[in-house]
């Protein structure tokens, strides 16, 4: 092979090498023991395996998703059950007055929580509209806070997640 051929071969090789944007793989085995850093929240929650935790936001202290776009989130806030429940129903175009004592009850965090359900077209705060949507919500007053768990998604998907939702709510504990 003469030098000119070698040079001609080297140029594209160098060019191709410089275009390679990946870096050599590395094996990782380092671990560390758990510390108080790993107690991240004041709530202990066991999330169902087919849900995934996504970034929290200002009003979503524990934010999850299921299926493609289904959402479940815990909010620690204030206010009373009735007005919050009615606000949720309004998002489904449901104008009925909530009678708290008539709602389904569930023991959560040592207090009696109520479960709220609705369906229809959901009009969310971020301009999101979901046709044939379902709502499954839980509201409980505990330690001076109003804890709410709200599941929004396609009606049939929400119904399919009911058992997961109940188990999730029952797992919530103060740390």
């Amino acid at each position: 092979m003469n030098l000119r051929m070698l040079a001609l071969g080297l140029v594209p090789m160098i060019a191709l090498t410089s275009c390679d944007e990946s870096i050599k793989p590395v094996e990782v085995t380092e671990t560390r023991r758990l510390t108080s850093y790993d107690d991240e929240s004041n709530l202990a929650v066991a999330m169902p395996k087919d849900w995934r935790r996504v970034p929290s936001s200002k009003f979503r202290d524990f934010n999850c998703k299921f299926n493609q776009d289904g959402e479940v989130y815990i909010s620690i806030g204030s206010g009373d059950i009735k007005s919050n429940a009615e606000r949720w129903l309004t998002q489904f175009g449901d104008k009925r007055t909530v009678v708290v004592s008539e709602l389904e009850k569930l023991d959560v965090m040592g207090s009696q929580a109520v479960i709220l359900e609705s369906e229809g077209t959901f009009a969310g705060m971020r301009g999101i509209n979901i046709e044939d949507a379902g709502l499954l919500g839980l509201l409980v007053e505990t330690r001076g806070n109003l804890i709410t768990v709200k599941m929004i998604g396609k009606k049939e998907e929400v119904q399919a997640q009911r058992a997961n939702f109940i188990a999730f709510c029952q797992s919530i504990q103060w740390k």
Partner: protein
Amino acid sequence: MRKKSTNPIVKAFAFMGGFHIAIVCMVLLLILTWLSTLEQTGPGGLYWTLHKYFSFGAITVRPTLYGNDLPIILPGGYWVCAVFTLNLLVGGVMRIRKGWKHAPVLVSHFSMLMLMIGGAVTYHQSRESYMLLEVGDTGDYAWSLTELSIEIAEIKEGDKQEPLILNSEVLSAVRGKPQLKREFLLPSLPFDATVSEYHINTQVAQVRGSAVEGAHVVDGYYINPIEPTGAEESNFSACIISLKERESGETHELILFEGLTHDVTVTIDDKIYGLRLHGEIWNTPFRVRLDASRGEKHPGTGMAMIYESDVTVLDEEGNDEMKRKIEMNKPLRYKDLTFYQTSWNDAGPKVESGFTVKTNPSDQWPKYAIYTCGIALFVHFIIKLFGFVSTSIARSKNEQ
């Protein structure tokens, strides 16, 4: 007069230990320090400017002044120091004239050599993190404000298990280089990971309606890179991690964002895994309880003027080992760790003390080197003074 050697090795050795090299190195260090001091006031900030000028990987430096790249290329500060250390070893210790009269100069050169080597040990072996405690709290970890890691941990029934760590060193190849990606093989987990699009400062936004053009949307979120701030500790990094199941080949993408205070999760093989990007966590070998924190602020400002803390060091079982007071410039030194109080805040419901936690095998070397050098030069001065005085007396006697 010594006859000059013609042997090229000897000549090279003499050149390496010569004054020319020493002067060039010192001038270069002066220029590098001056330019980096100017540059760190710009958008790069102190952390990235130090990295650019003085890191091991910085073979050459293209200085930037007031936003413009200067048309010069300088050698990296680390390597100038390395050459200077070699010069000091060859010229100042090995080739120097020996004898008791020159012993103090030899010792002073040796102490400067120790100072330089101490700097290298600090660069390669020291570790610095931060511990923030409210009065009454006990800390068992410190975290880095500038070095980030990714942790992957299985979550069983809501409880996090021991995490696997992709530390800052292995991530450094892609950090701040969003066009690059790196694969991480995780033999203890059923998947491997690839990290990409690792930005220094970002906001993570949720898609509202339709996605932003060109955005890489992952589960309804995308990374919005923003200009890094000068202070690295106030930047919020983000990256995309892609987990590829080894058996099925199925991949799962997640966005990791430093600004989150919790893990994001993925379920693989019926197990939930939590992932998080954050400052490297350093488990301290003992715990520290903050018993009291006192301070004073500059009048009319929120800046602390003086502060001090009473702490109790606890062993692994939580038993009291000793009580100490940490003051400004009076750190707690215990079991290879040094706790310097670096912040104090009484704005919240409880008073807080912030400690910089450091380990450095050559922590005290500069002090000893400076003491040794000072004593050696003093002895050298005395020897020279006596020599001068005795010569002067002898000369004046002769003149009489």
